[in-house]
């Protein structure tokens, strides 16, 4: 297995720490003039997103993680697995709930998602940054309100619930930022 030394660990490098895949976030070198050098390295878990800091003796190394990111088209879910297809090779894969997680809230079919593979298995799914989805249920708004100060909850066709301004009605298509889960605007019409 290939490894990477502390002075080659750049932001974004994917490494294996205690058998788990992480991405390097930050790497700070410190050394007393006549003493032992160390690197304090911030790493983000590719599974949980949690960031932690480890300190290594400079020159020591970690194994590189076998990580690959592929753009794939979401096909459908059978309830247990979410199925994706590589549009270049037509190869199909299935990803379980732990990999799909919150991405499931924003995809209904045909979206191009980023699938992260760890040792050849899907580790995480990132949906497109913006989703266009139909509101399937929301309370009728109060006429005259156009700013939507407080807003109201709206259930989307995928099951996701977002806060929308009061003037947005059931059956309308809205644009949502999937990274924050926030309503952006009404789409189409």
């Amino acid at each position, binding site marked *: 297995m290939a490894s990477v030394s502390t*002075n080659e660990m750049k932001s974004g490098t994917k490494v294996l720490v205690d058998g788990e895949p992480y991405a390097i976030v930050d790497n*700070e*070198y*410190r*050394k*007393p*003039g*006549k*003493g*032992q*050098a*160390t690197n*304090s390295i911030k790493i983000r878990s590719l599974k949980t997103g949690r960031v*932690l*800091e*480890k*300190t*290594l*003796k*400079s*020159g*020591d190394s970690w194994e590189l993680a076998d990580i690959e990111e592929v753009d794939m088209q979401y096909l459908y879910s059978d309830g247990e697995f979410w199925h994706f297809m590589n549009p270049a090779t037509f190869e199909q894969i299935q990803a379980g709930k732990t990999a799909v997680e919150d991405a499931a809230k924003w995809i209904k079919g045909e979206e191009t998602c980023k699938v992260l593979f760890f040792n050849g298995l899907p580790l995480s799914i990132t949906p497109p940054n913006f989703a266009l989805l139909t509101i399937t249920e929301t309370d009728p708004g109060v006429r005259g309100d156009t700013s939507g100060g407080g807003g109201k909850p709206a259930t989307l066709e995928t099951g996701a619930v977002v806060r929308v301004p009061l003037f947005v009605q059931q059956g309308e298509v809205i644009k949502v930022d999937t990274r924050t889960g926030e309503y952006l605007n009404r789409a189409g019409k």
Partner: protein
Amino acid sequence: MLRARAELYGSIRAFFAARGVLEVDTPVLSSHATVDRHIESFEVPGGGWLQTSPEFAMKRLLCAGSGPIFQIAPAFRREESGRHHNPEFRLLEWYRPTWDHTLLMDEVEALAHHLGIARGRRFVRLSYREAFVAFAGFDPHVADLTALRAAWPQVDLGADADDRDAWLDLWMSHRVGPRLGDPDPVFLVDFPASQAALARVRPGDPPLAERFELFWRGIELANGFHELGDAQEQRRRFEADQAWRRARHRLVPPLDDNLIEALQAGLPASAGVALGVDRLLMLAQGLPELAAALSFDHPRA
């Protein structure tokens, strides 16, 4: 920035000219190199090594009777790269025959004030022990390995996990050093004998190295010694460092027998110090990182 550096060099030269310290030039490329455990040299294809400081050549000049000397020299250290490190940097190094390190600290302070650094502030002298007691909460001369490690569950020192000095260095670079010298610059003195490098060791309990480091605003700026003049002891330390390197399958450069020979002929009792010019410029100009004080930092050199 280019102008600030030129002015800094001019002020340094004026300071030493007024004090009768001779500017010298010594070779950057040498047939020997430092064997220091924590300093890696660049080996040049075709033969020779780039100096990691002008120390050995300048000591040979002292042995030859040069009297007080200084130089602003390039230094090269492999693998040293970071916010406060660049593999190539400039050192101001000078030597004072007949002086000891305490007299030399006075001169470092005078130079700093002459350069407009911490003007009007008295430099503080703090022992290695006092600094650790204040900022790490323990006595570095007696604390055992378990105590040194306890605060660092996330640290893996690999092959050096049982090396007390490696843990002390970790405390120094992460907790103690960053607290030193703000606002008043601090001379850290009386290092553990195990960290003597090329300094004399004063017998006692514990024995202490006659070595100092200057910290300003949490950054190490200079390192000075009451110089070791004992050729036999110098050879013994070099060989111990070589053995340490060999045991870890590290590069083992040839030790400088020209220096040993010169020491045998006799090094006048003297004190010497090396000061990082780029860091000085960085701090004096209020820059966030060393790269900003350089014309071209290593990735762009």
